[in-house]
């Protein structure tokens, strides 16, 4: 009886809403207000909840770019798997790169909960319509680069991702929790590698320093433009997609990373870097934003190479994807076939 009443009420709500026209404008205002109050109260937004179109679009863009970064991020490190200096290092690097593939997949499926289509997202990456983190457009020139990436690039990513574990969209936040658990291994293996190099022979130490010199500034750029220049940040923080500004995150990263470099006995390539007693933070030099935008626009050292590698992987895998689908369909039919065969006989 009671269940029937509910059904009738739902039925009325769904099918006779045209009767409620005077309310419709109010309803959309209400929906927006309810949505914002949920966010203000720290209630997570879930896939089937009402959300403003712009929130959905912003998230699809951000989550898919994040996913693309994980996937493209496998390439610079993958470059060294066959040349890892020991079996131990090779196993570690393989596991790390495999994790990054996993991170990409968690994120693509989080984007799909918002109605995005996986194939379309991949196409956006391959056609250059979607961006990925610019850091992966730099080459890995010596073995210490693998250490520097784990320590600095994963380190910077963690700073950002820890914040995102509290982002307002449920599936994104949950993917971030899983990712952060895995990231700490990435950073530690990188730092351990840097220690092995920094405390090794003079040649090894020089390689470590060379890697730090090349990765330091691009790592700082990973946090994006200064707050004063950043276009999306106001709305993103009102919606609690982002809870800290680019500059805050960058400062956090510098503050924790500089002492780690000192421990290694390496020099951070920034003459203006010094501890500011008054602020309780490190001051650091000016970032070369021309370089940043140049890489974003596609003119970094490896942009073309990265997209070529992804396109080749996608195209070379096409027949496998199609064959697997055809095989599954055939298996499904075979399951039904014997019965049909018996009946026919």
């Amino acid at each position, binding site marked *: 009886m*009671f269940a029937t009443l*509910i059904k009738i*009420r*739902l039925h009325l*709500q769904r099918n006779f809403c045209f009767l409620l026209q005077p309310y419709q404008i109010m309803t959309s205002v209400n929906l927006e207000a309810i949505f914002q109050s949920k966010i203000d109260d720290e209630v997570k937004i*879930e896939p*089937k*909840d*009402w959300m403003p179109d712009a929130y959905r679009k912003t998230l699809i863009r951000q989550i898919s770019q994040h996913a693309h970064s994980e996937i493209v991020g496998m390439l610079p490190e993958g470059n060294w798997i066959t040349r890892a200096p020991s079996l131990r290092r090779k196993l570690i690097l393989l*596991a790390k790169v*495999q*994790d990054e593939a*996993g991170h990409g*997949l*968690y994120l693509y*499926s*989080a984007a*799909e*909960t918002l109605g995005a*289509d*996986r*194939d379309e997202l991949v196409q956006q990456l391959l056609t250059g319509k979607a961006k990925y983190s610019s850091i992966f457009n730099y080459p890995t020139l010596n073995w210490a680069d693998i250490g520097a990436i784990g320590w600095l690039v994963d380190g910077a990513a963690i700073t950002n991702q820890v914040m995102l574990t509290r982002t307002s969209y449920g*599936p994104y936040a*949950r*993917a971030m929790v*899983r990712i952060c658990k*895995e990231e700490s291994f990435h950073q530690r293996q990188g730092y351990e590698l840097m220690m092995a190099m920094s405390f090794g022979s003079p040649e090894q130490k020089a390689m470590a320093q060379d890697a730090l010199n090349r990765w330091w500034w691009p790592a700082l750029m990973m946090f994006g433009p200064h707050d004063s220049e950043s276009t999306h940040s106001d709305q993103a923080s009102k919606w609690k997609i982002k809870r800290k500004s680019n500059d805050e995150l960058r400062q956090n990263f510098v503050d924790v990373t500089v002492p780690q470099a000192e421990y290694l006995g390496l020099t951070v390539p920034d003459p203006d870097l010094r501890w500011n007693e008054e602020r309780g933070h490190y001051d650091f030099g000016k970032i070369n934003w021309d370089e940043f935008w140049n890489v974003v626009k596609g003119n970094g050292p490896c942009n073309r190479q990265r997209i070529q590698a992804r396109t080749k992987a996608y195209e070379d895998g096409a027949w496998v*994807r*199609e064959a*697997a*689908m055809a*095989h*599954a369909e055939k*298996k*499904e039919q075979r399951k039904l076939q014997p019965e049909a065969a018996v009946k026919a006989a």
Partner: protein
Amino acid sequence: MKKEWPLWEIFIRSKSGLNHKHVGSLHATDAEMALENARDLYTRRNEGVSIWVVESKHITASDPDDSDPLFEPARDKVYRHPTFYTVPDNVSHM
């Protein structure tokens, strides 16, 4: 004849005695492949002892807009909770 692999929802039992819990989703051609992919994607660090896979299209979810009529009726039934009843201090084991 391009066709996207269907989407599957993945549930993992983290150790025996616990419920299967939703962990995320993935694409696979069939249930068997979904299980294999789930093993690789969601249990790389002993996160599970058992996996369930369900094709996403088979899941029916309640509409968040219906949550009032659905869940409101339980809200005012405080007498369903043990804290609704007072038991004298000198009465124990209850």
